[in-house]
């Protein structure tokens, strides 16, 4: 069978569903060669995770998802039971480093080679020899908490000192630890230590029925609940061999764009706030609140949680409410246009935004910056265009983009995408086809695979799913774009002053929960 990845030296099979996704087994020894060839073709790493296959009479496995021109390629390398190890790929795809470390912490598969073998998601809660995602690990296990020894990289030199920040922060943000090495006020190095919010999401999936998994997926990162519920549903539908009705897909598109608009409104407000333009915060949050109330009224939830369900959607949008939605969005769009020109002309704000927290396109490309931050640094990838599933297959989505890669560029991409989302919602409401909202999703057969991949507001959200025996979930890996973008934040702050960190951080607005799992 021909497939678009023959030149990678793998034999790939098309996965079911509308997403252009393929799966291929690969020998551990061939993993690096495939990764190198993918890299040479400007392929990108999406995710790396591991699984325990011992209950299926095998050992362990490491999985790699790659974004290639032909679509998504999911590689699986079977690893031996006694000493599960594979050649690491972090030198080829730097973003793999933390994922490999997490795969070791959770499943105990070892990435050979490479420099960084420190733990990542494990702190002091479970001991180094215990691996929570192994099948013989009881989800209710308790261990005596131990001290969390973590060797940060030290920067030596005259006048260099360290500022440790977190995990609990001064503002209402998620917990994480940042260690700054500074001279005077200038940041020489930032090292992130995350994993504080690790709450066992992947293990929890294995205790849930496939249908219930959508609710959990919708709570991996609450600000992206629509993207996750969609990606999970897409994965489950693929594994079960069903497709949502066209009306449901169209509604899903409306919901995803509403989520994008709400988040961009909130972030644009905070970007103003962080440069002492409180006006911006109040204006954008006024508009955001208007939208959240409309969401609650039309779809029953301010953040649209649980509206996307496996098989379709749980709520409909009638003609009159649809028109009301468009009228309100029209008002919001007009106000945002005014606010944009105010931001653009505000010398104080622009002075703080321009050339602050810069990630130049070459660095973004090399390290794999994704999503809206990637597009602000010249990485023109957007799944709604590159790997469209219904309803995006019928829409001409305009990719936003910028090349300066600074706070101003990330603000500009948000403004452009916000306007584009409003346009897309109008197009979708107008073409909302008649039909069912939901189809039944049969229990997938044991071993069935599916994946979902969706351009959330922050970037591409990926879910890989494998069905287990008797209606269980064997393995679910939800993957947040923040995995790939957190390391770039460490680079974006270099040379900046510490007081600019909150602004730079907010301009990326990465998820802690989504990447801590």
């Amino acid at each position: 069978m021909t497939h678009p990845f023959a030149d990678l030296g793998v034999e790939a099979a098309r996965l079911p569903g509308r997403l252009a996704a393929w799966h291929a087994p690969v020998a551990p020894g061939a993993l690096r060669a495939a990764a190198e060839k993918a890299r040479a073709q400007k392929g990108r790493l999406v995710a790396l995770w591991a699984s325990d296959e011992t209950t299926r009479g095998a050992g362990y496995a490491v999985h790699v998802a790659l974004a290639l021109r032909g679509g998504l390629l999911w590689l699986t390398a079977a690893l031996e039971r006694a000493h599960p190890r594979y050649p690491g790929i972090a030198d080829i795809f730097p973003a793999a480093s933390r994922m490999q470390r997490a795969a070791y912490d959770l499943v105990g598969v070892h990435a050979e080679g490479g420099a960084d073998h420190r733990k990542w998601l494990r702190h002091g809660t479970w001991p180094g020899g215990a691996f929570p995602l192994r099948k013989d690990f009881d989800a209710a296990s308790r261990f005596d908490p131990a001290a969390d020894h973590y060797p940060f990289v030290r920067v030596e030199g005259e006048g260099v000192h360290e500022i440790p920040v977190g995990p609990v922060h001064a503002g209402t943000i998620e917990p994480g630890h940042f260690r700054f090495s500074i001279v005077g006020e200038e940041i020489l190095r930032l090292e992130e230590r995350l994993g504080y919010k690790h709450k066992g999401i992947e293990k929890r999936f294995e205790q849930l029925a496939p249908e219930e998994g959508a609710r959990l997926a919708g709570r991996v990162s609450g600000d992206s609940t629509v993207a996750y519920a969609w990606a999970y549903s897409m994965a489950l539908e693929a594994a079960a061999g069903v497709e949502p009705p066209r009306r449901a897909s169209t509604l899903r598109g409306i919901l995803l764009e509403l989520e994008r608009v709400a988040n961009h409104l909130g972030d644009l407000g905070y970007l103003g706030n962080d440069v002492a333009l409180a006006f911006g915060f109040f204006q954008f949050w006024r508009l955001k609140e208007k939208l959240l109330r409309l969401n609650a009224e039309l779809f029953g939830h301010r953040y649209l949680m649980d509206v996307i369900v496996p098989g379709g959607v749980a709520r409909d949008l009638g003609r009159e409410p649809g028109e009301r939605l468009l009228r309100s969005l029209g008002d919001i769009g007009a106000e945002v246009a005014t606010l944009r020109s105010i931001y653009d002309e505000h010398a104080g704000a622009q002075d703080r935004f321009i050339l602050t927290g810069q990630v130049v396109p070459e660095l973004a490309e090399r390290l794999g910056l994704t999503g809206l931050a990637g597009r602000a640094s010249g990485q023109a990838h957007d799944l709604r265009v590159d790997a469209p599933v219904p309803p995006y297959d019928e829409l001409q989505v305009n990719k936003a983009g910028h090349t300066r890669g600074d706070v101003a560029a990330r603000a500009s991409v948000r403004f452009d995408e916000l306007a584009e989302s409003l346009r897309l919602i109008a197009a979708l409401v107008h073409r909302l086809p008649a039909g069912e909202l939901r189809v039944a999703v049969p229990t997938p057969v044991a071993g069935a695979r599916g994946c979902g991949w969706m351009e959330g507001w922050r970037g591409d959200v990926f879910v890989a799913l494998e069905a287990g025996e008797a209606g269980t979930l064997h393995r679910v890996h939800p993957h947040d774009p923040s995995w790939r973008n957190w390391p770039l934040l460490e680079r974006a702050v270099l040379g900046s002053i510490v007081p600019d960190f909150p602004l730079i951080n907010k301009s990326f607005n990465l998820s802690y929960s989504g990447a801590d799992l």
Partner: protein
Amino acid sequence: MYQLLRQIARTGIVTEPAPQADESLRQIEQRLSEAVLKHFGRSLAIRHVDAGSCNGCELEIHAANGPHYNLERLGVRFVASPRHADLLLVTGPVSRHMETALRRTYDATPEPKLVVAIGDCGCTGGIFGESYASCGRVANVIPVDVAVPGCPPTPVAIMQGILTAATSRS
């Protein structure tokens, strides 16, 4: 600058009037102001601790600080250190990785102190439950005065929770 001022003038004050939900909000504002006055002198200082949420609850805490609810104008302030706080607003199931940080934050908060647990997760552990990685509800780790259900609870519910906590000691 002209455009900015014009926009401010055009917007006016959005801090609630409007139907239903707003009426209940108005009452909350008054009662909260009284409670704050009575128990904490003109201000109630809140420290937010995210102990492992999905970040959904944080979105509503942010919204409560937005123009429609404008929590701060009631004398409720979010402060940067537990040492300045009267009340801890805790979200999430408490991840085991945050257990120590939450306890330390609680210990660092001077008496008398109040704790409001936010969201289904804060109330019961929510969909994450208790596991090797999650301690479940906030009350499993520190004493909780008021628990506000919802996934996430609305800004009004969060304000109600703060009010209930601030009056429960009378």
